[in-house]
C-alpha cells in the first residue's frame, strides 16, 4: 500500500521543449483524445459547481431569517432555477461523463472511445449549452443588453413556461440549454455503450468487466430512454411558445399534467443516471481500500441492471398530489418501494466487502464511507416519500429538498470527491495532499450534516420549497439559521479541495503508475497515461487482472 508514493520520478531523460500557449490551446480545443475530453468535462463541471454552489449560498443567506430582503423575489426564483438546472445538467452530467470518458477505455484495455470525434462534438455542444444558459443573464430580454435568468424552476412546470406567464426569452434560453445538453448526453451515452460492447481487450468477457464499466453501461442505456422524452418536451414547449401549438398551453385546452409526465419520465431516471456512476466509483474504491475483492459481483451486476429497468417505472411518485387517482398512486407506490430492494442489495454487498478486510482510511476511503452512511439515510427518507399519503404531506416541502440533497450531495458529491482523491494521481501524475484531503473531509462532513440533517425539520413543520421568504411566527427560523450556517462549512471545504488540486498539480508527490496497489487495468499504465493508453493491448483472465499479476500463486481466475 502506497509504497510507490515516495518513489522518485520515473527516469525520463528526454524533456520535450516548452510549447507556446497557443499550441497547447490548439491541442486541447481540437483534441479527440478521450482522456483530454474527460478532463475538460471535469474542469468545466467544476467551474459550474462553484457557480451553482455560490447561488446556493445566496439563497441560504436570504432564508436564514424570516422576511429577509437580501435578494428580490424574482432574483431568488432565478437563483433556485439556475442552481438546480446547473447542478443537474452542467455539473452532475458532465462530471460523471468526464470520469466515464476518462476511465472506461482505460479500464477495458482500449486505446480510445469507439467514436472519438462524436465524443469531442458531445463535449463542445454541452459546453455551448452551459454558455447559453448563463448568457440569459445578459441576453434574455432581447436586444437591450438586459436580461434575466430563467425563473420557472428546474422542472419548469407548465403553464408557468407559457409566454403569457413567462414573457421575454429566459425560458427559451433554458429550453435551448437543456436541448443541447440532451444531445450531448445522448452522444456520450452512445459512445460509452459502443465502447463497452465492442472495444474490450481480449479475455474481458462481459462477466469480467469492472463493475464501474457495467454501471456506466446501465447509466448510458438509461440516457437513451430518458433524454428522448425530455428533448421531445423541450421541442413541444418551443412550438407552444412560438408556433401556436397547445401541448401544454392550458389556456387553450392543453395539459399541464402532460408536461409533468414528460419531465418526470426523464427526471426520475435522471436521479439514477447520476447516482449509478457514484455507485460505480464506490465499486472500485471500497474494495481497493478494504484490500478485498468486491463481494457478490454477479448480484451487483444484476442489481444495477434491475435498478435501470425499475427506475423507468417510478416517475409518477413525483406526482402523488396532482390527482392521478388511487389506482395510479398505488402502482407508483409499489414500483418505488420495489426499487429499494436492488438498491439495498448494493449497500449490503459493500458492507460485506468491508467485512473481514483491512480498511485503509485514505481521504478517498473516508469520503466513500461517508457515502455509505449518507446513502443509507437518503434511501430511508426515500422510502418515507414513497408512501404516497406521507408524500402528500412531505412532497414539495423542505423535507423533499433535504432528501434529494442527501442523495445528490451526501451520496453523489461525496463519491465524486472520493473519486478525485482516488484517480487524481492517475490523471495528473501527482498525489493529492492526504492531510488537506482529510481536513476537506471533516469540514465538509460537518457542513453537510448541519445543512441537510436540519433541513428536514422545517419541511415537517410545514415549510414549502421555493419560497423566497417566510412568516416569522411559524417556528422555522432557528432551523433555517442552522441550515444556512452549514453552507459556510461546505463552501470552506470546497475551497480547500480546489486549493489542494491546484497545489498538488505543481507540488504533490509523484504518483507512479499504481499508488494504491489496485487491481484494474488503468493502474497498469503510466500516470498520466500516454495518448495511446496501452503500448500493447493487454489480455485478461479475471475481473482483477493486476491482482493476478501481483499474486501469481493465487490468481482470481481460479475462482471465477
Amino acid at each position, binding site marked *: 500500500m502506497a509504497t510507490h508514493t515516495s518513489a522518485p520520478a520515473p527516469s525520463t531523460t528526454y524533456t520535450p521543449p516548452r510549447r507556446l500557449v497557443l499550441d497547447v490551446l490548439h491541442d486541447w480545443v481540437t483534441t479527440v483524445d478521450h482522456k483530454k475530453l474527460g478532463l475538460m468535462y471535469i474542469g468545466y463541471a467544476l467551474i459550474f459547481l462553484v457557480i451553482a454552489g455560490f447561488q446556493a449560498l445566496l439563497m441560504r443567506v436570504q432564508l436564514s431569517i424570516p422576511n429577509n430582503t437580501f435578494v428580490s*423575489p424574482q432574483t431568488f426564483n432565478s437563483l433556485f432555477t439556475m442552481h438546480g438546472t446547473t447542478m443537474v445538467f452542467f455539473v452532475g452530467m458532465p462530471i460523471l461523463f468526464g470520469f466515464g470518458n476518462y476511465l472506461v477505455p482505460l479500464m477495458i484495455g482500449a486505446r480510445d472511445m469507439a467514436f472519438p470525434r462524436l465524443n469531442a462534438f458531445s463535449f463542445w455542444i454541452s459546453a455551448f449549452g452551459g454558455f447559453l444558459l448563463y448568457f440569459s443573464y445578459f441576453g434574455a430580454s432581447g436586444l437591450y443588453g438586459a436580461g434575466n435568468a430563467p425563473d420557472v424552476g428546474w422542472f419548469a412546470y407548465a403553464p408557468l413556461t407559457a409566454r403569457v406567464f413567462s414573457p421575454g426569452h429566459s425560458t427559451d434560453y433554458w429550453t435551448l440549454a437543456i436541448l443541447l445538453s440532451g444531445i450531448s448526453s445522448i452522444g456520450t451515452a452512445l459512445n460509452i455503450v459502443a465502447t463497452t460492447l465492442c472495444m474490450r481487450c481480449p479475455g474481458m468477457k462481459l462477466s469480467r468487466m469492472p463493475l464501474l464499466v457495467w454501471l456506466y453501461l446501465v447509466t448510458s442505456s438509461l440516457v437513451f430512454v430518458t433524454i428522448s422524452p425530455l428533448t421531445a418536451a423541450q421541442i413541444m414547449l418551443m412550438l407552444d411558445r412560438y408556433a401556436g401549438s397547445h401541448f401544454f398551453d392550458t389556456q387553450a385546452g392543453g395539459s399541464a399534467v402532460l408536461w409533468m409526465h414528460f419531465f418526470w419520465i426523464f427526471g426520475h431516471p435522471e436521479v439514477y443516471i447520476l447516482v449509478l456512476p457514484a455507485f460505480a466509483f464506490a465499486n472500485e474504491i471500497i474494495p481497493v481500500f478494504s484490500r478485498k475483492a468486491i463481494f457478490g459481483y454477479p448480484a451487483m451486476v444484476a442489481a444495477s441492471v434491475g435498478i435501470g429497468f425499475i427506475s423507468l417505472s417510478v416517475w409518477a411518485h413525483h406526482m402523488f*398530489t396532482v390527482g392521478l387517482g388511487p389506482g395510479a398512486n398505488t402502482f407508483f*407506490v409499489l414500483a418505488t418501494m420495489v426499487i429499494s*430492494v436492488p438498491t439495498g442489495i448494493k449497500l449490503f454487498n459493500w458492507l460485506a466487502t*468491508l467485512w473481514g478486510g483491512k480498511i485503509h482510511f485514505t481521504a478517498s476511503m473516508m469520503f466513500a464511507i461517508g457515502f455509505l452512511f449518507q446513502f443509507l439515510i437518503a434511501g430511508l427518507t426515500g422510502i418515507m416519500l414513497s408512501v404516497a*399519503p406521507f408524500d402528500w404531506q412531505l412532497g414539495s416541502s423542505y423535507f423533499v429538498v433535504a432528501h434529494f440533497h442527501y442523495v445528490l450531495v451526501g451520496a453523489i458529491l461525496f463519491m465524486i470527491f472520493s473519486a478525485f482523491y482516488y484517480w487524481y494521481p492517475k490523471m495528473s501524475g501527482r498525489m493529492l495532499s492526504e492531510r488537506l484531503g482529510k481536513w476537506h473531509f471533516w469540514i465538509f462532513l460537518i457542513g453537510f450534516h448541519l445543512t441537510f440533517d436540519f433541513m428536514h425539520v422545517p419541511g415537517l413543520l410545514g415549510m414549502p420549497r*421555493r419560497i423566497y421568504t417566510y412568516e416569522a411566527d411559524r417556528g422555522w427560523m432557528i432551523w433555517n439559521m442552522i441550515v444556512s450556517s452549514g453552507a459556510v462549512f461546505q463552501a470552506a471545504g470546497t475551497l480547500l479541495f480546489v486549493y489542494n488540486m491546484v497545489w498538488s498539480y505543481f507540488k504533490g508527490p509523484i504518483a507512479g503508475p499504481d499508488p494504491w496497489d489496485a487491481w484494474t487495468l488503468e493502474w497498469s499504465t503510466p500516470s498520466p497515461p500516454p495518448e495511446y493508453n496501452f503500448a500493447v493491448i493487454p489480455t485478461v483472465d479475471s475481473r482483477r487482472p493486476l491482482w493476478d499479476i501481483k499474486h501469481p500463486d493465487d490468481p482470481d481466475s481460479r475462482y471465477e
Partner: protein
Amino acid sequence: MSRNIWALLSSDFSHGSTSIFAPAGTPAHSIFSLSLLVLGITTAIFLIVAGLLLFAVIRYRHRASDANASQEPPQIYGSTQIELSWTVIPVLIVVLLFLATTRIILSTQNAPKPAAALDVTIVGHQYWWEFSYPKLGIVTANELHIPVSDPKHPTPTYLTMTSADTDHSFWVPRLAGKMDLIPNQINTMWLDPQTPGLYLGQCAQYCGIQHAKMLLRVYADSPADFAAWVARQQKPANNDATLDQQAVAGRAVFQHSVCISCHTVAGTVATGRFGPDLTHLASRDTIASGSLPNTPANLRAFIDNPAAFKPGALMPAMHLNQHDLDAVTAYLSTLK
C-alpha cells in the same frame, strides 16, 4: 430583527402551527399514524445497517501493528445464501409497507361522501385563493370558513379544485395532505377538523414570483358560528343609509376607477372576477392572501402600491391621491 428570538426558539416542535405531527383532521390523522409505522421501520433498518457498518469500519480497520499487516486479507467473492437473505427480507418489508400504504390511500381518496357534506369550490389564482360555496351562494377569498365535523355526525367539507392560471397546491398540514390545483383539471379532497380554530397553510406548488406570499387560512367554526358566518356573508355588504360621507366618496372613487374591472362587491356595479371578491372584505382578518393584517393602515398602503408588499402581485399601483386613498380605504372598511 426586533422580534424576540427566544420566542421563536421556544415554538413547540410537535405543536407548531403548521406541523404535520399535530394532526387535527381525519386525513392528517391517518397520515400521521401511517408515518409512525414508516418511521418505526426505517429507524429499525437504520440502526441495524448503520450499526453493522460502524462495526465493520472499526473492527476491520488496517492496523500497522498487526503481525501480518502487510498481507492481504482472505479474498471472499460472495455467497448465494447471504445474497438471498438480504433480498428476501427487504421484499417482505416492502410488502408490509405497500399494504399499509394502500389502505390509507383508499380510505382517504375513496372515502364515501356523506349527505351532510359541505361543498366548496377553490380556484387558485396568482397569488390568492378564491373560495365559493355554490349551494350557499357565497364567494370569498383567502380565508376559508368550514364547520367542524363531529365524528358521530360527520359534516366534512369537500373541496373541488382547479386553477385559473398556473399550478398551485392547497396545503394545510394539520388538516390533510396537499392537493394540487391545476388549470383544465378538477381535483378533489376533503377536510373534517374536529376542534374549532384557525389552521394555517400556504401554496405548496411554485406558481410564480409571489408563490411565497400565497398564504392560506382555514377557520374551523362551531356549527353556530358557521351558521352566523354564512348568514352574514349571504347578505349584501353595506347598507347605504349607514355609510358616512367619506365612505360614500370612497365608493364613488372605487366605482369610477379600474377597481371594478377586477373586483366584485355584490349588489353594486363592481362585478370584476380577476381579483378577490371584496363584498365582505372587512370581515376578513388579513389582506394580500394572508400576508398582512387587515388594518386600515395596511389596506391603504396596499391599495397605494401592492408591489411594496408583494412585488410581482398582479394588482397595479392605483396612483390615487391622498384624499381618494383615504376615501377608498374608508369605503372598503365598511364592507363587513
